[in-house]
Protein backbone atom coordinates (compact mmCIF):
# COMPACT_ATOMS: atom_id res chain seq x y z
CA UNK A 1 0.00 0.00 0.00
CA UNK A 2 2.70 2.42 1.04
CA UNK A 3 4.77 1.56 -2.03
CA UNK A 4 1.74 2.09 -4.31
CA UNK A 5 1.03 5.47 -2.74
CA UNK A 6 4.64 6.51 -2.98
CA UNK A 7 4.85 5.49 -6.65
CA UNK A 8 1.61 7.34 -7.40
CA UNK A 9 2.86 10.41 -5.57
CA UNK A 10 6.18 10.50 -7.42
CA UNK A 11 4.32 9.83 -10.66
CA UNK A 12 2.32 13.01 -10.06
CA UNK A 13 5.44 14.97 -9.14
CA UNK A 14 7.14 13.89 -12.36
CA UNK A 15 3.98 14.78 -14.30
CA UNK A 16 3.99 18.30 -12.82
CA UNK A 17 7.65 18.73 -13.68
CA UNK A 18 7.27 17.50 -17.26
CA UNK A 19 4.11 19.57 -17.73
CA UNK A 20 5.99 22.73 -16.75
CA UNK A 21 9.21 22.32 -18.70
CA UNK A 22 8.25 20.21 -21.71
CA UNK A 23 7.29 23.09 -24.10
CA UNK A 24 10.64 24.75 -23.45
CA UNK A 25 12.47 21.45 -23.93
CA UNK A 26 10.55 20.82 -27.13
CA UNK A 27 11.34 24.29 -28.46
CA UNK A 28 15.02 23.65 -27.79
CA UNK A 29 15.01 20.21 -29.40
CA UNK A 30 13.15 21.59 -32.42
CA UNK A 31 15.65 24.43 -32.76
CA UNK A 32 18.68 22.12 -33.05
CA UNK A 33 17.12 19.62 -35.47
CA UNK A 34 17.91 20.00 -39.16
CA UNK A 35 14.78 20.69 -41.21
CA UNK A 36 14.50 17.14 -42.59
CA UNK A 37 14.22 15.80 -39.03
CA UNK A 38 12.03 18.65 -37.87
CA UNK A 39 9.32 18.15 -40.47
CA UNK A 40 8.74 14.53 -39.77
CA UNK A 41 5.44 12.82 -39.12
CA UNK A 42 6.69 11.11 -35.97
CA UNK A 43 9.27 13.41 -34.38
CA UNK A 44 11.88 11.94 -32.04
CA UNK A 45 12.20 13.20 -28.46
CA UNK A 46 15.98 13.22 -28.69
CA UNK A 47 17.45 14.72 -31.88
CA UNK A 48 19.29 12.28 -34.13
CA UNK A 49 21.38 14.99 -35.75
CA UNK A 50 22.28 18.31 -34.22
CA UNK A 51 22.77 21.60 -36.05
CA UNK A 52 23.08 25.18 -34.88
CA UNK A 53 22.16 26.54 -38.29
CA UNK A 54 18.92 28.03 -37.01
CA UNK A 55 20.76 30.06 -34.39
CA UNK A 56 22.95 31.61 -37.08
CA UNK A 57 20.09 32.21 -39.51
CA UNK A 58 17.91 33.96 -36.98
CA UNK A 59 20.44 36.81 -36.82
CA UNK A 60 21.49 36.67 -40.47
CA UNK A 61 18.12 36.50 -42.20
CA UNK A 62 16.27 38.93 -39.97
CA UNK A 63 17.04 41.82 -37.59
CA UNK A 64 16.56 39.73 -34.47
CA UNK A 65 19.53 41.29 -32.66
CA UNK A 66 17.86 44.67 -33.26
CA UNK A 67 14.66 43.35 -31.69
CA UNK A 68 16.63 42.20 -28.66
CA UNK A 69 18.26 45.62 -28.41
CA UNK A 70 14.83 47.30 -28.58
CA UNK A 71 13.50 45.10 -25.80
CA UNK A 72 16.52 45.72 -23.57
CA UNK A 73 16.26 49.50 -24.01
CA UNK A 74 12.51 49.64 -23.44
CA UNK A 75 12.43 47.22 -20.50
CA UNK A 76 15.61 48.67 -18.98
CA UNK A 77 14.54 52.31 -19.06
CA UNK A 78 11.06 51.38 -17.83
CA UNK A 79 12.56 49.55 -14.87
CA UNK A 80 14.85 52.42 -13.87
CA UNK A 81 12.10 55.00 -14.32
CA UNK A 82 9.51 52.97 -12.36
CA UNK A 83 11.94 52.42 -9.50
CA UNK A 84 12.98 56.08 -9.38
CA UNK A 85 9.47 57.49 -9.54
CA UNK A 86 7.89 54.66 -7.54
CA UNK A 87 10.34 54.71 -4.64
CA UNK A 88 9.71 58.42 -4.03
CA UNK A 89 5.98 57.79 -3.74
CA UNK A 90 6.44 54.62 -1.75
CA UNK A 91 8.68 56.35 0.77
CA UNK A 92 6.33 59.27 1.34
CA UNK A 93 3.38 56.90 1.71
CA UNK A 94 5.25 54.68 4.14
CA UNK A 95 6.84 57.38 6.28
CA UNK A 96 5.25 60.81 5.92
CA UNK A 97 1.88 61.84 7.32
CA UNK A 98 -0.10 63.92 4.84
CA UNK A 99 -3.70 64.59 3.95
CA UNK A 100 -5.29 62.57 1.20
CA UNK A 101 -2.89 59.65 1.53
CA UNK A 102 -5.67 57.09 1.21
CA UNK A 103 -7.01 58.71 -1.94
CA UNK A 104 -3.55 58.87 -3.51
CA UNK A 105 -2.92 55.21 -2.72
CA UNK A 106 -6.32 54.18 -4.12
CA UNK A 107 -5.69 56.18 -7.29
CA UNK A 108 -2.32 54.55 -7.82
CA UNK A 109 -3.60 51.04 -7.11
CA UNK A 110 -6.67 51.47 -9.31
CA UNK A 111 -4.37 51.80 -12.32
CA UNK A 112 -3.28 48.19 -11.85
CA UNK A 113 -6.89 47.16 -12.49
CA UNK A 114 -7.19 49.03 -15.79
CA UNK A 115 -7.58 46.62 -18.67
CA UNK A 116 -4.91 47.67 -21.19
CA UNK A 117 -7.29 47.22 -24.09
CA UNK A 118 -9.62 49.89 -22.68
CA UNK A 119 -6.99 52.60 -23.01
CA UNK A 120 -5.24 51.22 -26.11
CA UNK A 121 -7.13 53.35 -28.64
CA UNK A 122 -6.80 56.59 -26.69
CA UNK A 123 -3.12 56.12 -25.95
CA UNK A 124 -2.60 55.46 -29.65
CA UNK A 125 -4.29 58.76 -30.52
CA UNK A 126 -2.32 60.66 -27.86
CA UNK A 127 1.00 59.16 -28.97
CA UNK A 128 0.13 59.90 -32.59
CA UNK A 129 -0.63 63.51 -31.74
CA UNK A 130 2.70 63.78 -29.89
CA UNK A 131 4.53 62.02 -32.79
CA UNK A 132 5.59 59.24 -30.41
CA UNK A 133 4.39 56.26 -32.45
CA UNK A 134 7.43 54.23 -33.50
CA UNK A 135 9.61 55.67 -30.73
CA UNK A 136 11.01 54.09 -27.56
CA UNK A 137 9.42 56.86 -25.49
CA UNK A 138 6.02 55.88 -26.86
CA UNK A 139 6.37 52.47 -25.23
CA UNK A 140 8.32 53.45 -22.12
CA UNK A 141 5.70 55.93 -20.89
CA UNK A 142 2.72 53.53 -20.89
CA UNK A 143 4.90 50.73 -19.50
CA UNK A 144 6.04 52.91 -16.61
CA UNK A 145 2.45 53.86 -15.78
CA UNK A 146 1.43 50.19 -15.86
CA UNK A 147 4.25 49.13 -13.54
CA UNK A 148 4.17 51.94 -11.00
CA UNK A 149 1.27 50.53 -8.92
CA UNK A 150 3.10 47.29 -8.14
CA UNK A 151 6.37 49.12 -7.53
CA UNK A 152 4.79 51.56 -5.08
CA UNK A 153 2.83 48.86 -3.29
CA UNK A 154 5.71 46.44 -2.81
CA UNK A 155 8.25 49.13 -1.92
CA UNK A 156 6.05 50.91 0.61
CA UNK A 157 5.48 47.57 2.34
CA UNK A 158 9.22 47.12 2.34
CA UNK A 159 10.01 50.61 3.65
CA UNK A 160 7.57 50.17 6.51
CA UNK A 161 9.51 47.18 7.80
CA UNK A 162 12.81 49.07 8.01
CA UNK A 163 13.86 50.24 11.48
CA UNK A 164 12.76 53.83 11.92
CA UNK A 165 15.56 54.74 14.35
CA UNK A 166 18.29 55.00 11.71
CA UNK A 167 16.24 57.43 9.65
CA UNK A 168 15.44 59.46 12.74
CA UNK A 169 19.13 59.67 13.59
CA UNK A 170 19.90 60.90 10.09
CA UNK A 171 17.14 63.45 10.37
CA UNK A 172 18.46 64.75 13.67
CA UNK A 173 21.93 65.01 12.11
CA UNK A 174 20.38 67.39 9.61
CA UNK A 175 19.93 65.20 6.54
CA UNK A 176 17.06 66.20 4.26
CA UNK A 177 14.26 63.81 3.33
CA UNK A 178 15.72 63.12 -0.10
CA UNK A 179 19.17 62.66 1.36
CA UNK A 180 17.83 60.16 3.93
CA UNK A 181 16.00 58.28 1.20
CA UNK A 182 19.00 58.25 -1.12
CA UNK A 183 21.84 57.35 1.22
CA UNK A 184 20.10 55.36 3.96
CA UNK A 185 16.74 53.94 2.99
CA UNK A 186 17.52 52.87 -0.58
CA UNK A 187 20.74 50.97 0.24
CA UNK A 188 18.94 49.16 3.05
CA UNK A 189 16.11 48.29 0.67
CA UNK A 190 18.33 46.71 -1.99
CA UNK A 191 16.56 43.32 -1.82
CA UNK A 192 13.16 44.94 -2.26
CA UNK A 193 14.42 47.07 -5.12
CA UNK A 194 15.92 44.05 -6.88
CA UNK A 195 12.68 42.07 -6.57
CA UNK A 196 10.41 44.87 -7.83
CA UNK A 197 12.91 45.86 -10.50
CA UNK A 198 13.00 42.29 -11.76
CA UNK A 199 9.21 42.04 -11.85
CA UNK A 200 9.00 45.32 -13.76
CA UNK A 201 11.68 44.24 -16.20
CA UNK A 202 9.97 40.91 -16.87
CA UNK A 203 6.55 42.53 -17.27
CA UNK A 204 7.91 45.06 -19.78
CA UNK A 205 10.00 42.47 -21.60
CA UNK A 206 6.90 40.27 -22.00
CA UNK A 207 4.33 42.92 -22.90
CA UNK A 208 2.68 42.32 -26.24
CA UNK A 209 -0.48 44.37 -26.89
CA UNK A 210 1.02 47.86 -26.62
CA UNK A 211 4.24 46.82 -28.36
CA UNK A 212 2.23 45.34 -31.23
CA UNK A 213 0.19 48.51 -31.62
CA UNK A 214 2.67 51.33 -31.00
CA UNK A 215 5.69 49.94 -32.88
CA UNK A 216 4.83 49.43 -36.49
CA UNK A 217 8.20 48.90 -38.19
CA UNK A 218 9.95 45.51 -38.06
CA UNK A 219 13.22 47.11 -36.96
CA UNK A 220 11.43 48.66 -33.98
CA UNK A 221 9.55 45.52 -32.91
CA UNK A 222 10.29 44.27 -29.44
CA UNK A 223 11.09 40.58 -28.99
CA UNK A 224 7.55 39.25 -28.33
CA UNK A 225 6.19 41.08 -31.38
CA UNK A 226 9.05 39.95 -33.61
CA UNK A 227 8.43 36.36 -32.56
CA UNK A 228 4.65 36.61 -32.86
CA UNK A 229 4.89 38.06 -36.37
CA UNK A 230 7.69 35.75 -37.52
CA UNK A 231 7.57 35.39 -41.27
CA UNK A 232 9.31 33.11 -43.69
CA UNK A 233 10.30 33.47 -47.32
CA UNK A 234 6.75 32.85 -48.48
CA UNK A 235 3.52 33.88 -46.84
CA UNK A 236 2.46 30.36 -45.96
CA UNK A 237 5.72 28.95 -44.78
CA UNK A 238 6.83 29.63 -41.22
CA UNK A 239 10.46 28.71 -40.53
CA UNK A 240 9.67 26.79 -37.34
CA UNK A 241 13.27 25.82 -36.60
CA UNK A 242 14.39 29.45 -36.65
CA UNK A 243 11.34 30.52 -34.71
CA UNK A 244 12.10 28.02 -31.96
CA UNK A 245 15.77 29.12 -31.91
CA UNK A 246 14.64 32.71 -31.41
CA UNK A 247 12.25 31.63 -28.67
CA UNK A 248 14.99 29.73 -26.86
CA UNK A 249 17.50 32.60 -27.14
CA UNK A 250 15.24 35.10 -25.42
CA UNK A 251 13.64 32.69 -22.97
CA UNK A 252 16.80 31.18 -21.51
CA UNK A 253 18.17 34.34 -19.81
CA UNK A 254 14.72 35.05 -18.43
CA UNK A 255 14.30 31.55 -17.04
CA UNK A 256 17.78 31.60 -15.50
CA UNK A 257 17.09 35.00 -13.93
CA UNK A 258 13.79 33.76 -12.51
CA UNK A 259 15.37 30.61 -11.11
CA UNK A 260 18.14 32.58 -9.40
CA UNK A 261 15.72 35.01 -7.80
CA UNK A 262 12.81 32.61 -7.33
CA UNK A 263 12.28 33.24 -3.63
CA UNK A 264 12.25 36.98 -3.99
CA UNK A 265 9.95 36.83 -7.00
CA UNK A 266 7.43 34.64 -5.23
CA UNK A 267 7.51 37.00 -2.25
CA UNK A 268 7.05 40.01 -4.51
CA UNK A 269 4.27 38.40 -6.48
CA UNK A 270 2.35 37.26 -3.43
CA UNK A 271 2.64 40.80 -2.11
CA UNK A 272 1.30 42.08 -5.42
CA UNK A 273 -1.26 39.44 -6.22
CA UNK A 274 -2.47 38.04 -2.95
CA UNK A 275 -2.39 41.13 -0.81
CA UNK A 276 -3.21 43.58 -3.56
Amino acid sequence: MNVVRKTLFYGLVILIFVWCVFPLYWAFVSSIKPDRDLFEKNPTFIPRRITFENYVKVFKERPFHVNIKNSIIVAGVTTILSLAVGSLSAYSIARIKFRGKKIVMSLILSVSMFPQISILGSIFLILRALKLINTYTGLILPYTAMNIPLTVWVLQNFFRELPKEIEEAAFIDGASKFRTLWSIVLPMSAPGLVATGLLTFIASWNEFLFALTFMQRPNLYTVPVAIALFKGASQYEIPWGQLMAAAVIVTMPLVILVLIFQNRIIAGLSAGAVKG
Partner: protein
Amino acid sequence: MKIKGSAAYWMIFPTLLIISIVAFFPLFKTFYDSFFSFGLRPGIERKFVGLENYKNLLRDVRFVNALKNTIFFTVVSVSIETVLGLIVALIVHQKFTLRGIVRAAMLVPWAIPTAISSQMWRWMFHDQFGIMTRLWERIGIITPGTPILGRPGLAMWAIIFVDVWKTTPFMALLILAGLQVIPEDIYEAAKIDGANSIQRFFKITLPLVTPTIAVALIFRTLDALRVFDVVYIMTRGAVNTETLAVYNRHVLMDRAFTGAWFGYGSAISVFIFMLIMIFAIIYIRSLKLRLD
Protein backbone atom coordinates in the same frame (compact mmCIF):
# COMPACT_ATOMS: atom_id res chain seq x y z
CA MET B 1 9.71 62.41 13.47
CA LYS B 2 8.63 65.84 12.31
CA ILE B 3 8.36 66.09 8.57
CA LYS B 4 6.71 68.68 6.45
CA GLY B 5 3.69 67.27 4.64
CA SER B 6 4.45 69.34 1.57
CA ALA B 7 7.55 67.26 0.85
CA ALA B 8 5.25 64.26 0.42
CA TYR B 9 3.29 65.98 -2.32
CA TRP B 10 6.47 66.72 -4.26
CA MET B 11 7.55 63.13 -3.93
CA ILE B 12 4.24 61.79 -5.15
CA PHE B 13 3.85 64.29 -7.97
CA PRO B 14 5.88 62.41 -10.64
CA THR B 15 3.85 59.24 -10.08
CA LEU B 16 0.57 61.07 -10.34
CA LEU B 17 1.75 62.93 -13.44
CA ILE B 18 2.66 59.74 -15.30
CA ILE B 19 -0.44 57.78 -14.39
CA SER B 20 -2.59 60.79 -15.26
CA ILE B 21 -1.09 61.17 -18.73
CA VAL B 22 -1.01 57.50 -19.68
CA ALA B 23 -3.87 56.01 -17.68
CA PHE B 24 -6.54 58.38 -16.35
CA PHE B 25 -6.65 60.82 -19.23
CA PRO B 26 -6.81 58.05 -21.89
CA LEU B 27 -9.55 56.36 -19.90
CA PHE B 28 -11.54 59.59 -19.78
CA LYS B 29 -10.91 60.12 -23.48
CA THR B 30 -12.16 56.62 -24.30
CA PHE B 31 -15.42 57.36 -22.48
CA TYR B 32 -15.74 60.71 -24.25
CA ASP B 33 -14.93 59.32 -27.71
CA SER B 34 -17.48 56.54 -27.32
CA PHE B 35 -20.26 59.13 -27.81
CA PHE B 36 -18.91 60.15 -31.22
CA SER B 37 -18.73 58.71 -34.67
CA PHE B 38 -15.31 59.11 -36.28
CA GLY B 39 -12.44 57.23 -37.89
CA LEU B 40 -8.69 57.51 -38.27
CA ARG B 41 -8.68 58.14 -42.03
CA PRO B 42 -8.61 61.83 -42.93
CA GLY B 43 -11.88 63.09 -44.36
CA ILE B 44 -14.24 61.34 -41.97
CA GLU B 45 -16.40 63.89 -40.20
CA ARG B 46 -16.54 63.69 -36.39
CA LYS B 47 -20.17 63.62 -35.23
CA PHE B 48 -21.80 63.44 -31.80
CA VAL B 49 -24.07 60.40 -31.76
CA GLY B 50 -25.01 60.08 -28.08
CA LEU B 51 -25.62 56.49 -27.06
CA GLU B 52 -25.84 55.22 -30.63
CA ASN B 53 -22.57 53.23 -30.40
CA TYR B 54 -23.77 51.45 -27.28
CA LYS B 55 -27.11 50.59 -28.88
CA ASN B 56 -25.25 49.09 -31.82
CA LEU B 57 -23.24 46.78 -29.55
CA LEU B 58 -26.07 44.34 -28.98
CA ARG B 59 -27.00 44.35 -32.67
CA ASP B 60 -23.44 43.42 -33.61
CA VAL B 61 -23.38 39.65 -34.00
CA ARG B 62 -19.58 39.58 -33.95
CA PHE B 63 -19.51 41.51 -30.66
CA VAL B 64 -22.05 39.23 -29.00
CA ASN B 65 -20.09 36.24 -30.19
CA ALA B 66 -16.84 37.67 -28.81
CA LEU B 67 -18.59 38.26 -25.48
CA LYS B 68 -19.78 34.64 -25.41
CA ASN B 69 -16.29 33.36 -26.26
CA THR B 70 -14.72 35.53 -23.56
CA ILE B 71 -17.13 34.29 -20.90
CA PHE B 72 -16.64 30.68 -22.00
CA PHE B 73 -12.86 31.05 -21.95
CA THR B 74 -12.91 32.75 -18.54
CA VAL B 75 -15.26 30.33 -16.79
CA VAL B 76 -13.63 27.18 -18.15
CA SER B 77 -9.98 28.18 -17.83
CA VAL B 78 -10.27 29.77 -14.38
CA SER B 79 -12.22 26.78 -12.99
CA ILE B 80 -9.71 24.26 -14.30
CA GLU B 81 -6.78 26.37 -13.11
CA THR B 82 -8.21 26.72 -9.61
CA VAL B 83 -8.93 23.01 -9.12
CA LEU B 84 -5.65 21.85 -10.67
CA GLY B 85 -3.78 24.63 -8.87
CA LEU B 86 -5.07 23.42 -5.51
CA ILE B 87 -4.15 19.83 -6.30
CA VAL B 88 -0.65 20.79 -7.44
CA ALA B 89 -0.19 23.02 -4.38
CA LEU B 90 -1.15 20.14 -2.07
CA ILE B 91 1.34 17.87 -3.82
CA VAL B 92 4.31 20.24 -3.70
CA HIS B 93 3.44 21.11 -0.09
CA GLN B 94 4.53 17.59 0.89
CA LYS B 95 8.13 16.95 1.78
CA PHE B 96 10.00 14.99 -0.88
CA THR B 97 13.42 14.82 -2.49
CA LEU B 98 14.05 17.40 -5.24
CA ARG B 99 11.10 19.50 -4.07
CA GLY B 100 13.10 22.67 -4.69
CA ILE B 101 13.69 21.76 -8.32
CA VAL B 102 10.03 21.01 -8.94
CA ARG B 103 8.98 24.31 -7.36
CA ALA B 104 11.53 26.15 -9.47
CA ALA B 105 10.25 24.42 -12.61
CA MET B 106 6.79 25.73 -11.77
CA LEU B 107 7.99 29.26 -12.43
CA VAL B 108 9.07 28.41 -15.97
CA PRO B 109 5.66 28.66 -17.72
CA TRP B 110 5.09 31.99 -16.01
CA ALA B 111 8.54 33.33 -16.93
CA ILE B 112 8.20 32.66 -20.67
CA PRO B 113 6.46 35.60 -22.36
CA THR B 114 2.95 34.58 -23.42
CA ALA B 115 3.64 35.71 -26.98
CA ILE B 116 6.56 33.31 -27.14
CA SER B 117 5.02 30.35 -25.35
CA SER B 118 1.98 30.70 -27.60
CA GLN B 119 4.26 30.26 -30.62
CA MET B 120 5.89 27.23 -28.97
CA TRP B 121 2.44 25.71 -28.49
CA ARG B 122 1.36 26.64 -32.00
CA TRP B 123 4.25 24.53 -33.22
CA MET B 124 3.22 21.70 -30.89
CA PHE B 125 -0.34 21.94 -32.24
CA HIS B 126 0.89 22.06 -35.88
CA ASP B 127 -1.59 20.07 -38.00
CA GLN B 128 1.09 17.86 -39.61
CA PHE B 129 4.19 17.88 -37.45
CA GLY B 130 2.90 18.91 -34.01
CA ILE B 131 3.79 16.66 -31.11
CA MET B 132 0.58 17.58 -29.27
CA THR B 133 -1.46 16.79 -32.36
CA ARG B 134 0.16 13.32 -32.35
CA LEU B 135 -0.61 12.90 -28.65
CA TRP B 136 -4.26 13.94 -29.01
CA GLU B 137 -4.57 11.48 -31.91
CA ARG B 138 -3.08 8.67 -29.80
CA ILE B 139 -5.39 9.36 -26.85
CA GLY B 140 -8.32 9.53 -29.24
CA ILE B 141 -9.41 13.12 -28.61
CA ILE B 142 -9.18 13.76 -32.36
CA THR B 143 -9.20 11.60 -35.46
CA PRO B 144 -5.91 11.62 -37.39
CA GLY B 145 -5.64 14.51 -39.82
CA THR B 146 -7.72 16.96 -37.79
CA PRO B 147 -6.15 20.44 -37.71
CA ILE B 148 -6.67 21.36 -34.04
CA LEU B 149 -6.18 25.10 -34.50
CA GLY B 150 -8.37 25.11 -37.62
CA ARG B 151 -11.51 23.54 -36.17
CA PRO B 152 -14.17 25.65 -34.47
CA GLY B 153 -14.68 24.35 -30.95
CA LEU B 154 -11.41 22.44 -30.89
CA ALA B 155 -9.31 25.60 -31.39
CA MET B 156 -10.83 27.25 -28.31
CA TRP B 157 -10.01 24.17 -26.24
CA ALA B 158 -6.41 24.32 -27.46
CA ILE B 159 -6.24 27.97 -26.36
CA ILE B 160 -7.69 27.08 -22.96
CA PHE B 161 -5.14 24.26 -22.74
CA VAL B 162 -2.27 26.71 -23.25
CA ASP B 163 -3.69 29.13 -20.70
CA VAL B 164 -4.10 26.31 -18.17
CA TRP B 165 -0.49 25.26 -18.82
CA LYS B 166 0.78 28.77 -18.19
CA THR B 167 -1.34 29.67 -15.20
CA THR B 168 -1.91 26.51 -13.15
CA PRO B 169 1.64 26.34 -11.73
CA PHE B 170 1.45 30.00 -10.83
CA MET B 171 -1.93 29.57 -9.18
CA ALA B 172 -0.45 26.60 -7.31
CA LEU B 173 2.44 28.71 -6.01
CA LEU B 174 0.02 31.34 -4.71
CA ILE B 175 -2.13 28.71 -2.99
CA LEU B 176 1.05 27.10 -1.64
CA ALA B 177 1.92 30.40 0.04
CA GLY B 178 -1.49 30.17 1.76
CA LEU B 179 -0.92 26.55 2.77
CA GLN B 180 2.45 27.31 4.33
CA VAL B 181 1.03 29.71 6.90
CA ILE B 182 -1.34 27.09 8.36
CA PRO B 183 0.29 26.13 11.67
CA GLU B 184 1.37 22.50 11.91
CA ASP B 185 -0.03 21.98 15.44
CA ILE B 186 -3.64 22.28 14.22
CA TYR B 187 -3.05 19.12 12.20
CA GLU B 188 -1.35 17.44 15.15
CA ALA B 189 -4.32 18.22 17.38
CA ALA B 190 -6.75 16.91 14.76
CA LYS B 191 -4.70 13.72 14.41
CA ILE B 192 -4.83 13.14 18.15
CA ASP B 193 -8.59 13.66 18.04
CA GLY B 194 -8.71 10.87 15.44
CA ALA B 195 -9.46 12.85 12.26
CA ASN B 196 -8.37 11.03 9.11
CA SER B 197 -6.59 12.73 6.22
CA ILE B 198 -9.79 13.38 4.24
CA GLN B 199 -11.46 14.96 7.28
CA ARG B 200 -8.35 17.01 7.95
CA PHE B 201 -8.43 18.31 4.38
CA PHE B 202 -12.10 19.34 4.38
CA LYS B 203 -12.26 20.60 7.97
CA ILE B 204 -8.90 22.33 8.28
CA THR B 205 -6.98 22.86 5.04
CA LEU B 206 -9.80 23.89 2.75
CA PRO B 207 -11.48 26.45 5.05
CA LEU B 208 -8.13 28.01 5.97
CA VAL B 209 -6.90 28.27 2.40
CA THR B 210 -10.22 29.45 0.93
CA PRO B 211 -9.48 33.19 1.32
CA THR B 212 -6.23 32.77 -0.63
CA ILE B 213 -8.01 30.79 -3.33
CA ALA B 214 -10.80 33.37 -3.54
CA VAL B 215 -8.37 36.22 -4.06
CA ALA B 216 -6.30 34.29 -6.62
CA LEU B 217 -9.49 33.29 -8.42
CA ILE B 218 -10.81 36.83 -8.79
CA PHE B 219 -7.36 38.03 -9.79
CA ARG B 220 -7.26 35.37 -12.53
CA THR B 221 -10.78 36.29 -13.65
CA LEU B 222 -9.69 39.89 -14.18
CA ASP B 223 -6.86 38.59 -16.36
CA ALA B 224 -8.93 36.08 -18.30
CA LEU B 225 -11.63 38.62 -19.21
CA ARG B 226 -9.08 40.69 -21.09
CA VAL B 227 -7.23 37.78 -22.73
CA PHE B 228 -5.48 38.88 -25.90
CA ASP B 229 -1.97 37.50 -26.54
CA VAL B 230 -2.65 33.78 -26.65
CA VAL B 231 -5.75 34.12 -28.84
CA TYR B 232 -4.18 36.62 -31.20
CA ILE B 233 -1.13 34.45 -31.78
CA MET B 234 -2.72 31.00 -31.90
CA THR B 235 -5.63 31.81 -34.23
CA ARG B 236 -5.87 35.60 -34.77
CA GLY B 237 -9.45 35.15 -33.51
CA ALA B 238 -10.44 32.89 -36.39
CA VAL B 239 -12.51 29.69 -36.10
CA ASN B 240 -14.82 31.13 -33.47
CA THR B 241 -12.13 31.94 -30.90
CA GLU B 242 -12.39 35.72 -31.07
CA THR B 243 -12.51 37.32 -27.62
CA LEU B 244 -13.58 40.86 -26.70
CA ALA B 245 -10.03 42.23 -26.56
CA VAL B 246 -9.09 40.73 -29.94
CA TYR B 247 -12.24 42.10 -31.57
CA ASN B 248 -11.77 45.46 -29.88
CA ARG B 249 -8.26 45.86 -31.24
CA HIS B 250 -9.43 44.85 -34.71
CA VAL B 251 -12.13 47.56 -34.70
CA LEU B 252 -9.79 50.25 -33.30
CA MET B 253 -6.65 49.51 -35.26
CA ASP B 254 -7.81 47.92 -38.54
CA ARG B 255 -11.38 48.97 -39.26
CA ALA B 256 -11.01 52.53 -37.95
CA PHE B 257 -8.53 53.27 -40.77
CA THR B 258 -11.16 52.42 -43.38
CA GLY B 259 -14.28 54.04 -41.92
CA ALA B 260 -15.97 55.76 -38.98
CA TRP B 261 -15.35 52.95 -36.50
CA PHE B 262 -13.19 54.49 -33.80
CA GLY B 263 -16.11 55.75 -31.71
CA TYR B 264 -17.72 52.34 -31.84
CA GLY B 265 -14.42 50.74 -30.87
CA SER B 266 -14.23 53.09 -27.89
CA ALA B 267 -17.69 51.91 -26.82
CA ILE B 268 -16.40 48.32 -26.85
CA SER B 269 -13.41 49.47 -24.76
CA VAL B 270 -15.76 51.07 -22.23
CA PHE B 271 -17.82 47.87 -22.12
CA ILE B 272 -14.71 45.79 -21.35
CA PHE B 273 -13.67 48.32 -18.72
CA MET B 274 -17.06 48.14 -16.98
CA LEU B 275 -17.11 44.36 -17.10
CA ILE B 276 -13.69 44.16 -15.47
CA MET B 277 -14.48 46.87 -12.92
CA ILE B 278 -17.36 44.78 -11.58
CA PHE B 279 -14.87 42.04 -10.76
CA ALA B 280 -12.28 44.52 -9.57
CA ILE B 281 -14.75 45.89 -7.00
CA ILE B 282 -15.49 42.37 -5.77
CA TYR B 283 -11.72 41.85 -5.59
CA ILE B 284 -11.13 44.99 -3.52
CA ARG B 285 -14.00 44.06 -1.20
CA SER B 286 -12.53 40.64 -0.60
CA LEU B 287 -9.14 42.22 0.18
CA LYS B 288 -10.67 44.48 2.80
CA LEU B 289 -12.24 41.46 4.43
CA ARG B 290 -8.84 39.84 4.63
CA LEU B 291 -7.10 42.88 5.99
CA ASP B 292 -9.56 43.32 8.87
